[in-house]
C-alpha cells in the first residue's frame, strides 16, 4: 500500500504526526521534570520531593488501598467475566432471536456505554440506600471493589468471547468424543486455549481500575482514600506541589514501564511461536 501514498503526502503526515506524539508526552514529562524541584531555600535539582513522599504515611496507605482495589477487583472480574464470555459463546441457543436473545448483550454493554459519572452516582445512591436500610455496604474500600468489578466484567467477557469465537467449534466436539465432560473440557481445553485472553482480561481489569477516578470518587468513603483521590484532594486543597508531581511521576513511570515490557514480551512470544518447526 505504501507505494500508493505519494512522497509529498508522507512528508506532510510525518510533519503533523511527530509534533502530536511530542505533545502527547509533554505534559507527562513536565510532571516528571517538576518533581525534581529542589528543597525549600535550595537551588538545582533534588530528590527532596520523593523523600517527603516516602515518609508520608497517608501516601503509603493510599498506595496499599489502590493495590488492593486493583488486584481484588481484577481477580473477581476475571473469574466472572471468563465464565460469562465462555457461557455466552458455548451455550447460547444458536438460533434464538428477539429481545430475549439479545438481553445478555444489552446487559454486558451497559457498563461500557454508561458515562462513568452516571455509573458512579448510581452506585453512590444505591450503596447509600442499602446502607441506610440494612446497615450493609458502608461506603469504603468494599463498595469501591464492587463498583470496579462491575465495570471490568464486560471487558473481560468481551476479550474471552472474542478469543473463543475465533476457535474451531470442532475442538469442543473432539473433546466430547474423547469422553471429556463439561467441567473437564472447561479446565483442559477452554482454559489453556483462552489463557492469553484471560491474562489479557486480567491486565485490562487492572489497567481500568488504576485509570479510574470518577467511579472511585463517588463510591469511596472517608477511610478509603486511594492514590487518585489523594492527588485530587491535594490539588483541590493546595494546588500542585513537588510531592504531588513526584507521586504522579511514579504512577506514570510504573504504567509506562509495565506496558512497554508487556508489549515486548508479547512480541517476543509471538515471534517465537511463528518460527517454523
Amino acid at each position: 500500500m505504501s507505494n500508493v501514498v505519494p512522497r509529498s503526502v508522507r512528508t506532510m503526515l510525518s510533519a503533523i504526526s511527530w509534533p502530536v506524539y511530542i505533545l502527547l508526552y509533554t505534559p507527562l514529562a513536565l510532571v516528571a521534570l517538576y518533581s525534581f524541584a529542589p528543597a525549600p531555600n535550595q537551588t538545582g535539582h533534588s530528590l527532596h520531593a520523593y523523600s517527603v513522599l516516602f515518609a508520608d504515611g497517608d501516601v503509603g496507605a493510599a498506595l496499599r488501598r489502590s493495590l488492593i482495589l486493583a488486584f481484588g477487583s481484577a481477580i473477581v472480574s476475571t473469574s466472572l467475566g471468563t465464565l460469562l464470555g465462555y457461557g455466552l459463546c458455548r451455550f447460547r441457543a444458536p438460533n434464538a432471536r428477539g429481545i430475549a436473545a439479545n438481553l445478555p448483550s444489552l446487559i454486558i454493554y451497559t457498563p461500557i456505554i454508561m458515562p462513568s459519572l452516571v455509573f458512579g452516582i448510581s452506585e453512590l445512591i444505591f450503596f447509600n440506600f442499602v446502607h441506610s436500610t440494612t446497615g450493609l455496604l458502608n461506603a469504603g474500600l468494599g463498595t469501591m471493589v464492587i463498583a470496579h468489578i462491575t465495570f471490568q466484567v464486560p471487558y473481560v467477557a468481551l476479550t474471552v468471547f472474542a478469543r473463543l469465537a475465533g476457535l474451531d467449534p470442532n475442538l469442543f466436539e473432539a473433546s466430547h468424543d474423547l469422553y471429556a465432560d463439561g467441567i473437564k473440557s472447561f479446565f483442559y481445553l477452554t482454559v489453556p486455549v483462552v489463557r492469553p485472553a484471560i491474562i489479557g482480561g486480567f491486565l485490562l481489569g487492572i489497567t481500568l481500575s488504576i485509570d479510574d477516578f470518577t467511579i472511585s470518587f463517588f463510591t469511596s468513603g472517608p477511610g478509603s482514600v486511594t492514590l487518585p483521590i489523594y492527588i485530587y484532594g491535594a490539588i483541590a486543597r493546595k494546588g500542585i506541589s513537588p510531592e504531588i508531581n513526584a507521586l504522579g511521576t511514579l504512577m506514570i513511570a510504573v504504567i509506562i514501564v509495565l506496558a512497554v515490557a508487556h508489549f515486548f514480551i508479547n512480541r517476543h512470544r509471538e515471534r517465537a511461536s511463528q518460527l517454523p518447526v
Partner: protein
Amino acid sequence: MFFRKRTALLGFFLMSASSLPQTAVQTESRARAFRLWITAGPGLFWIILFLLIPSAVLLGIGFLSSNDYGSPVMPITSQPFQQVAGFSMLGWDDGNIIIFLRSLEQAGIATVVTALLAYPLVFFIMTRPESVRPLLMLFIVLPSWTNQVVRTYAWLELLGPNAPLTWVAHALHIVPPDLGIAPGSFAVTTGLAYNYLPYMIVPLYASAERLDWTLVEAGRDLYASGFKLFWHTVFPQTIPGLLSGIIFVAIPAFGDYVVPQLLGGDRALMIGSLIANQFTETPDWPYGAALTIIMLVFTAAGLIAFRILSRRLGGSGEATI
C-alpha cells in the same frame, strides 16, 4: 401452560426451546440452558444487581421531592425536572441551558479536533513499516492508561497560571495577565481532546488496516489525485471506524467530570460538575438525579442516531457478543 410460561420467564433468553415438542432436542437444550445459567449467570447477575438496579433507583429518585437535607422523600413530583429546565422560586434562569449547550459544544469540538488529528496520525502509522506500527500505536494509547487525574492535572503544568504556554499567550495578549489559560474553556477542550484522542485513533486504525487499496489505485488510474482521491476512495472506507470513534469520544466527553473540574473552573462549568455538585457540595439528590436522566437521554439519543447511521453505512465484521 402456566408452568411453561414461568420457566420461559425465568430462562428469559432461552424461550426458543420451550415451544419445541418433548424430544431429545429439548433435553439437550435444557442441558444447554442449565450450563448457560451456571456460567453466564453470575456475571450477568452481578451487573444487574450492581448497575442496572442502581440506575433504576436513580431514575426513580428523579421524580421525588427533596427535604431540607436534599434527600429524596415522597411525594412524587416533576419539580426536579422544572429545576433542570431552569425554573426555581426566583423565576426562570438560563444557567442550566447554558451549561448544557456548553457541554454539547465542548464534546463537539473535542470530537472534531480528535478526528482531524486522528486521520493524519492513522495514515502516518499505516505508511510506516509493518514491524513498527504496533509500537507507534502503543505510544498513542499509553497516556490513556495512566490515571485520569494525573494525566489531566499534567496539563496545568503547560496551561496553568504560571506555565510555559500561558507565558506565550500573555506575550500574544490572548489571555489577560495574572490569569492562566487554565482554568478556562480552551483548557477544557484541550484536556478532553487529549484524554479521548486514542478512542478516536484505535477504531479508525482498525478500519484503515482493512482498507482496500486497489480502490485507491483504481481512483488514481482515473486521474483522481490529492484530496479528491482521498475523499472518494479512502474516506468512505473509514466511515465505520470514524463513527465508532465519534461515539467513543463524544459520549464520554459530554459527561466528563475530571477535565472540567481540574481545568475548567467556574467559568467553564459542564454538566458533569453540575450533576456532581448535587451529590457532594450542595446536596439535592432528586435534582441531581433529574439532571442525570436528561444527560442519559442525550447519550442514548446520540448512540441510537449513530447506530442507525453506521447500520446504513455498513458495519464492521468483527466478532461481538
